[in-house]
C-alpha cells in the first residue's frame, strides 16, 4: 500500500488553539461542553446504519452466521465488533492493517458493547454446545474529523438495534433457517443501549472539551472516553494519553456524559421508531436519497433532472433483426422517466401517434390487467 504520512499539527496552529481555549473559545464556536449534531440514517438492509457526527461519518453493518459456541460458554451467542479505518477516512490509514489506533477503538467499543452485556447473548443460542448465532458488527469509518469512538459506538449500537436476524426452527435433528420472506425476522434483544461520550483533556484536566474535532484531538494531552447507558450506568472508562486528572473531575464529567448519553439514546430510539413507521408504510427507507442530499445537496435532484431532460439520441443503433420481442422504434423523442432511485423507464413521447412504441400483444394484455387490477 502507498504510504501517506499523517500531517502533523503546526505549532502555530496548536498555540492558536490553546490561546483560544484560554479565552474560553473553541475554534468552531461551540461551548466547551457542546456536542456536534448527530444524524442517523438507516439503510434498506436490516442492520445497516449511517451515522454522522458533524463531519465524522461511520457506516455500520451487522451480519450474522451460525457457528459453534465457545466451549466455555456453550449457551451463549458470539458478538464480534470490528472497526475498519480505511484510507477513505483519512489518507494515512492503511486498509486491512491493525494500527494502535484501530486496536484501541476496537477495544473501547468491545468494552462498551460486548463486555457490558448489552446484547442478550443467551437469546442467540440455537442448540446448546452446537449452534449459536455469531453477530458481526462492521463499522467502516467514512470520514475522520475527530471523535471516531463516539461516532462508531452510536453507529454500532443503532445497527444492532435495527438488525433482524432470520428466524430459525428446529425439528430436533435439523435446523431450518427461514428467509426473510418466509418468516418475519427476529429483532435483537438489547438489555440496554451503551454509548461512548468522549472528552479531550487539556492543561492537566483544567479544560475538558466535549466531542473534540480532529485538531483538538491532536493537540489534546489525553482523551477521556466514557461509556454509559441511559440509566447512568457506567460501562467503560478509558483515559488515554498522559495527563493527571483528579477524581472529582472524572466524576463530574461522568455526570455530564450521562446526560448526553441519555439524549443520544433517546435520539437513536426515535430514529429507529421513525424507520419502523416508514417501513410499515412500505416506504422503504432509501439510504442513498436522503444520505446524499445531506452530503451534497441537490446532486440527486440534478441526476433526476438530467434523467428527465435526457432524450435518446436520434436512433443511433441499428434495428435488431427481429430476434427478440423488443422492437426499437425510431423515435427521437422518448424520455427517460425516473421510477425510483437509480431506476428509470423509457417513456415514449411521440409528437404524433405514428411515433409511439409498438407494443406486442402480450405486453398489451399485461398492461390491461395492470390497469384493471
Amino acid at each position, binding site marked *: 500500500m502507498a504510504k501517506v504520512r499523517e500531517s502533523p499539527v503546526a505549532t502555530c496552529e496548536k498555540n492558536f488553539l490553546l490561546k483560544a481555549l484560554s479565552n474560553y473559545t473553541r475554534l468552531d464556536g461551540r461551548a466547551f461542553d457542546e456536542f456536534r449534531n448527530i444524524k442517523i440514517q438507516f439503510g434498506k438492509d436490516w442492520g*445497516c446504519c449511517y451515522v454522522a457526527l458533524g463531519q465524522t461519518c461511520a*457506516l455500520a453493518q451487522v451480519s450474522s452466521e451460525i457457528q459453534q459456541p465457545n466451549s466455555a460458554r456453550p449457551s451463549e451467542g458470539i458478538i464480534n465488533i470490528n472497526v475498519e479505518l*480505511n484510507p477513505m477516512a483519512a489518507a494515512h490509514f492503511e486498509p486491512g492493517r491493525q494500527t494502535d489506533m484501530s486496536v484501541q477503538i476496537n477495544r473501547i467499543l468491545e468494552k462498551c458493547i460486548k463486555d457490558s452485556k448489552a446484547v442478550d447473548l443467551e437469546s442467540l443460542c440455537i442448540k446448546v454446545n452446537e449452534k449459536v448465532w455469531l453477530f458481526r458488527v462492521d463499522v467502516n469509518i467514512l470520514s475522520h474529523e475527530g471523535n471516531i469512538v463516539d461516532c462508531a459506538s452510536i453507529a454500532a449500537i443503532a445497527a444492532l438495534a435495527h438488525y433482524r436476524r432470520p428466524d430459525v426452527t428446529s425439528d430436533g435433528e435439523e435446523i431450518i433457517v427461514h428467509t426473510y420472506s418466509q418468516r418475519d425476522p427476529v429483532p435483537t434483544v438489547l438489555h440496554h443501549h451503551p454509548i461512548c461520550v468522549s472528552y479531550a483533556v487539556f492543561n492537566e484536566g483544567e479544560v475538558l472539551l466535549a466531542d473534540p474535532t480532529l485538531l483538538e484531538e491532536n493537540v489534546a494531552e489525553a482523551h477521556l472516553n466514557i461509556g454509559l447507558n441511559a440509566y447512568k450506568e457506567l460501562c467503560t472508562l478509558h483515559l488515554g494519553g498522559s495527563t493527571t486528572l483528579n477524581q472529582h473531575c472524572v466524576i463530574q464529567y461522568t455526570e455530564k456524559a450521562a446526560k448526553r448519553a441519555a439524549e443520544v439514546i433517546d435520539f437513536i430510539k426515535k430514529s429507529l421508531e421513525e424507520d419502523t413507521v416508514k417501513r410499515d408504510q412500505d416506504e422503504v427507507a432509501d439510504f442513498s436519497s436522503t*444520505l446524499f442530499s445531506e452530503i451534497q445537496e441537490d446532486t440527486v435532484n440534478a*441526476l433526476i433532472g*438530467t434523467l428527465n431532460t435526457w432524450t435518446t439520441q436520434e436512433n443511433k443503433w441499428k434495428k435488431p433483426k427481429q430476434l427478440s420481442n423488443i422492437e426499437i422504434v425510431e423515435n427521437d423523442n422518448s424520455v427517460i422517466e425516473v421510477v425510483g432511485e437509480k431506476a428509470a423507464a423509457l417513456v415514449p413521447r411521440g409528437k404524433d401517434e405514428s411515433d409511439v412504441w409498438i407494443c406486442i400483444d402480450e405486453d398489451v394484455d399485461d398492461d390491461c390487467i395492470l390497469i384493471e387490477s
Partner: protein
Amino acid sequence: PVEVKMQNILTDRTSVEVNFRPKAGLPNISDRLQEQIVKNSIETAILCELYPRSSVVITIQEMQNYGGLIACAINATCAALLNSGIDMRFLLAAVNCTVDKDNELHLDPDQIERDHAKAAFTFVFDSLDKKVVSSQTTGSFTLQQFQVALDLCKAACDCIFDFYKTITSKQISKHVV
C-alpha cells in the same frame, strides 16, 4: 498521486491501487475481482504517464448493494477522480442492463428485473467518442442481444456524462460563491 511502495513502483507510469471494501465482513475473492475490473477500466482513463513513480489510491466503500454495483463503483470512482484533479484522458461512464427471459432489455434494472434476468451486462464508455472501454457480462446471451444491449447502454451513457457536468458545475459555483 502519492508515494508508492517499492514493490509497486513503476518507473514509467503511475500504479493505480484500488481498494474495495464490502459493507460487512472482510474483503473476499469476489471483491478482488471487482477491484480488478474497476482498476482495469480506470487505468485507461488516467494519464498514467504523467505521474511516474507514484500511485493513485482509490478506496471504494460499498454502502448499499441493490444491483449494478460495478457500474456504480466505476461512476463513483470517475467522479472522485474528476474532483481530485488528476489528469485524465477522458471520463468514464458505466451502464448496467439486463436481458430477461422474454428477451426484453432493462436499463439499470431493479430487484425484480434482476432476479428474472437471463444475462446482465455492464459496459464502460469513454466520453470522447463513446467507445467501449470495458465490458462485463454474466449469463448466456446471443451476439445480437449483446449488440442491442451495447447500443442501448451507449445511448444511456450520455445521461451520466451530463450528470458529471451538472455536479461539477454545481460544486464549482458553490466554491465561487
